[in-house]
C-alpha cells in the first residue's frame, strides 16, 4: 500500500460537506474507507459528521448510508447486517458487503455505549469507528466521558474554583476489549498508514471490530485549523493517545508508540500537549499548575499498564 495506489481508490465520501476547516473527521473517515475495496454500507450516529455530510437534499455519500439517531448507530448497523444475513441465506443477495459505523465520543462513550456493547455482544459483523474529539463538539463543546482531566469545556469550564474537568476520561478502548471481540485498536490520522492497515485488518476479520481514533477539533481544542495533524501526532508522542491493537487476545503497540516503548523514540512530556491547546490554558500558570502534573501522572500510569498488556 502506498500513497499513489491509495490516490486511485474509490472516493466514498466526496466534496461538498460542511465540516470545519481543519476537522479531522473526514480525514479519518476517508482513511478508514480506504481500508477495503469491497462495497460498504455506512451507518452514522448523530453528530458533526452526520449533519455536515447529509444536508438534505444534498449528500456527500457515494455509498449507501443511514443515520437514525444519536445513541444507536450500532443498532442500525445491526439491523442492516441482519437483513444482509437473512437475504443472503435465502438466496436473494449474493454480493459480499462490508459494514462500518461512525460515531463521535459522545455517541460512543456516553449515550450510545449500551447500543455498542449490545451489538458487539451479539457478534454482528461490522466495524465501529469512534471519532474521539473528546467532547460534544456539535452542540458547542460540552463535556463527555472522553474529555480529559483539566480540559475546559462549556459544561466543565475552568473557573476561579474549578480547573476544568475534574475526572480522567474512561478508557473506552479497554472496556470494549473486555467484550472479547476479535479486533480493537487505537489509531490517529497523522499515521495514515497505521490507520488504513488497522481498518483493512478489521474489515477482513469476521465479527465485531472497534477502532478508536483521536480526532483533533480546532474549535473545541482551541488550536489553529492548520495544526490538526500535528495535534494528533503530539497526542501519540506524549503517550496521551497510544497506538495499539488487540487481536484475538493479543495486545500489540504500533507506530510511534511501539518505538517509544522500544526506546528508539523520545516520549514527549504532557506539558507540550497541554501547552498546544487553548482548552488547557488555565493549567499553564497560577493555582492550577498542579493539575498538569496530575495529568502527566495519569498518562504515565496508563502507559505503564498498557506496556505490560503489550508485554513490552
Amino acid at each position: 500500500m502506498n500513497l499513489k495506489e491509495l490516490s486511485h481508490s474509490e472516493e466514498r465520501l466526496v466534496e461538498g460537506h460542511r465540516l470545519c476547516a481543519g476537522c479531522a473527521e473526514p480525514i479519518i473517515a476517508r482513511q478508514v474507507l480506504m481500508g477495503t475495496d469491497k462495497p460498504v454500507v455506512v451507518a452514522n450516529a448523530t453528530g458533526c459528521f452526520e449533519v455536515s455530510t447529509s444536508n438534505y437534499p444534498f449528500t456527500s455519500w457515494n455509498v449507501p448510508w443511514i443515520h437514525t439517531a444519536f445513541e444507536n448507530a450500532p443498532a442500525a448497523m445491526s439491523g442492516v447486517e441482519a437483513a444482509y444475513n437473512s437475504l443472503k441465506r435465502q438466496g436473494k443477495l449474493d454480493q459480499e458487503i462490508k459494514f462500518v459505523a461512525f460515531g463521535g465520543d459522545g455517541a460512543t462513550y456516553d449515550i450510545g455505549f449500551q447500543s455498542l456493547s449490545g451489538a458487539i455482544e451479539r457478534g454482528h459483523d461490522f466495524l465501529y469507528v469512534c471519532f474521539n474529539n473528546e467532547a460534544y463538539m456539535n452542540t458547542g463543546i460540552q463535556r463527555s466521558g472522553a474529555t480529559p482531566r483539566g480540559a475546559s469545556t462549556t459544561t466543565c469550564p475552568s473557573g476561579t474554583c474549578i480547573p476544568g474537568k475534574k475526572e480522567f476520561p474512561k478508557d473506552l478502548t479497554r472496556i470494549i476489549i473486555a467484550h472479547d471481540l476479535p479486533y480493537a485498536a487505537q489509531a490517529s490520522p497523522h499515521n495514515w498508514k497505521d490507520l488504513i492497515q488497522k481498518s483493512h485488518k478489521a474489515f477482513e476479520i469476521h465479527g465485531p471490530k472497534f477502532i478508536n481514533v483521536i480526532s483533533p477539533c480546532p474549535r473545541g481544542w482551541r488550536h489553529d485549523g492548520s495544526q490538526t495533524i500535528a495535534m494528533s501526532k503530539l497526542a501519540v508522542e506524549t503517550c496521551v493517545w497510544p497506538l495499539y491493537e488487540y487481536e484475538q487476545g493479543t495486545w500489540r503497540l504500533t507506530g510511534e508508540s511501539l518505538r517509544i516503548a522500544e526506546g528508539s523514540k523520545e516520549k514527549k512530556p504532557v506539558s507540550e500537549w497541554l501547552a498546544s491547546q487553548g482548552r488547557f490554558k488555565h493549567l499553564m500558570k497560577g493555582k492550577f499548575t498542579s493539575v498538569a502534573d496530575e495529568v502527566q501522572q495519569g498518562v504515565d500510569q496508563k502507559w505503564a499498564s498498557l506496556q505490560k498488556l503489550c508485554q513490552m
Partner: protein
Amino acid sequence: MSEPMACNGDMAIALAWKQIDPDVVAAYPITPQTIIVEAFSDFVANGEVNTEYVCAESEHSALTICVGASAAGARVATATASAGLAFMWEMLYVSASMRVPIIMAVANRTLSGPINIHCDHSDAMGGRDSGWLQMFGENVQEAYDNTLIAFRIAEDMRVRLPIMTCIDGFIITHALERFEILDDDVAKKYVGPFQPLRPLLDIKNPTTYGPLAMPDYYYELKYQVQASMDAAVGVAREAMADFAKISGRKYDLVEGYRTEDAEYVMVAMGSTAGTMRFVVDQLRARGKKVGAVKVRLFRPFPAADMAKFLEGKKGVAVMDRAMSPGTGSPLYMDVLESVSRLKSPPRVSNYVYGLGGRDLIPEQLTTVFEEVMAGKGERVNFMGVRK
C-alpha cells in the same frame, strides 16, 4: 380453512408472523408481549421460518434494528408494550419519517408510574402523533386477522409507513379463545411478497437514509407522512375487502352495531367492544334505542366514517382506556373532531375507564348509557374512580 383451535392473542400474532416469515425480527422481552417473541423464537430454533432473529439489548435498539433492516430491504416485524414502547418513542418518529413499513405488535399495557403490568391504551397513545398507523383488535381472532391486514396496508407502495397492531394486554394477549387460522398458502398469498424500496443493500444505487433536513425542507418531508396517512384510508379499505374474500370475516375501519335507528351511541376500541355490544343488546331488549361503534383503525383516524355513524344521534359516550391529564382523552378528541363536521353534532361525553387493568363490568356501561340518555354526566368523566 384449518380446524378451529384454542389460542391466546399473543400466540395468534406469532402464528401470523410464522406464516408471513419476515426476513428480520428484532425484539426485547416485556410483559404482556413476551409470549409472541418466545413462540417466534421457537419457530426460529426449529427452522420453521427463514427469519434472522435479533435479541436486542433494549427496545430502543430493537426498533432501531428494525429500521436498519427495513431500510436495508428486509420485511420486518417486532413486538413491545408499555415502557418498551415508551423507550422506543424517539425511534417511532424516525421510522415513520424514514418510511420503513415495520409491523409492530403492541400488547397494550399501562405506563409507569406507579409501575403496573396491566392493560390500558396509554402506551399506544404515546405513539399517536408519530406517523405510525395504528390498528386495535377486539379478540384473539382479530389479533391474527389485523396482523395480516397490517402487513398489506403498511407495505403498500401508496402508504409505506410503519404500523402498530394493538391488542389489550392480558385481556387478549393471555386469554384462550376459539380461533381460526388461514391455511399458510392463503395467508402468504394475501400478504404477497415483500417489495423493497430503495434498499441500502442495493450498493449500485447508493441511498442516503436519515439526512439532516433544515427548516427549508423539514415541513415538506413531514407533510409526505400526512399524505400517506390520507392514502392509507383507502388502502386499508381495500385490504379489509380482500381479507373478507379469503376469510369470510368482514371488517371496516370503524364498525357500527345497531346504530341505524339508535339515538345514543357508545364508542370504544379493543376488547371493550364486545362488552359494549352485550350491553347494547341488553338495553335494546328493554326498548332503549342504543348502538355501538368500534374503532379498528385509529391512525389514520377515519373521521368521515365516524361522523356518518354519529350523524343525527342525540348523545355519544366515548370510552377511553387512557387519559390526558388536563384535557379530554385521545379517542374523545378524535370523535369530537369527527362530529364537528356535522351540521347539528350530538352531545359527546368522555368516559375514562379501565386504567392500569381495572376491570370493566357490563353494569358500568349500562350506567354510562343511562347517564348519557338522561343528559347527565360531565363532559369528561372518570368512571369508577375513588376520588
